């Protein structure tokens, strides 16, 4: 009789273990997906933010500066490259975060005359400036990125 009770108990434990295993499996797979989505969403929002800031700097003109903070903590090996591409008039952001590579591009509503690139790495700080500099020889506003 005692043996039979322990058999029931073992059966119940097995069922509970199966249930827990399934829940853990679903949990981990959902978490992996959510984490990747989290990084891409942050990058998207950041790229739109940079695009709008560049437009603002260009419109206000020389002497206006905006400080931008990237929405990530850069660990060893991680990097973020922000590039103002004057050939396609767009903001391009390439990043490596947690061993995964990402890339996003936003078209600008204003013309860019000068190409400007900035590389942010672990230890180099997580912010940069978007500056409007008046170019006297050409008579226009250059938007540049600087640390």
């Amino acid at each position, binding site marked *: 009789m005692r043996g039979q009770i322990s058999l029931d108990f073992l059966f119940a434990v097995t069922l509970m273990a199966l249930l827990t295993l399934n829940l853990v499996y679903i949990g981990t797979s959902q978490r992996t997906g959510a984490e990747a989505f989290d990084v*891409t969403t942050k990058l998207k929002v950041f790229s739109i933010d940079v695009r709008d800031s560049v437009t603002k700097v260009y419109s206000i003109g020389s002497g206006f500066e905006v400080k931008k903070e990237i929405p990530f903590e850069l660990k060893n090996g991680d990097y973020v490259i922000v590039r103002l591409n004057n050939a396609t008039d767009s903001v391009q952001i390439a990043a490596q975060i947690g061993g995964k590579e990402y890339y996003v*591009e*936003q078209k600008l509503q204003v013309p860019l005359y000068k190409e400007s690139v900035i590389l942010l790495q672990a230890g180099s700080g997580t912010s940069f400036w978007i500056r409007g500099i008046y170019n006297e020889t050409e008579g226009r506003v250059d938007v540049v990125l600087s640390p």
Partner: protein
Amino acid sequence: MSSSRRRAQTAVEAMFIIAVILTGVALIVPSYLRSSTVSTMDVYVRDAASSACDYLNEGVFVIDSMHQPLNVVLTYTNGSYAFFSFKGINVVENGGEVGVTVYIGTGVSFTPTQLSVVEDKIKEYILRYISSRPNVRREGDYLYMGGKRFTITVNVGDNL
């Protein structure tokens, strides 16, 4: 009858009952699994297709082998919002062969050549996405699950 004999008899009865229950389970479960294979794949395809649309609409390249097909599509819509929407699927079952057609709407006007590439790449992504699931096997353009062969077709049309 001594008490030890009676106890042995009870155990035989219990075994008989358990045998009947297990036979019932063995008969019911496979047929249940067979019918649920198609609906499981239905869920998988819907999940894969809507994840493809979400990825394309977000427009951020994730550079890995899973998203490589969709990155090709993103180069066509670079820098602007892609307007992809998952409209639904159609499942046609014919014996051991199941054809799944995925309908996706878009607001981007592609050239006919681009459109066929877009359809092809979204299909490739769906195949890659689903073959990472347990108990799904991929061979070429076919997916095998529960003894059935699934063919995926992607149809990209106007958003209207």
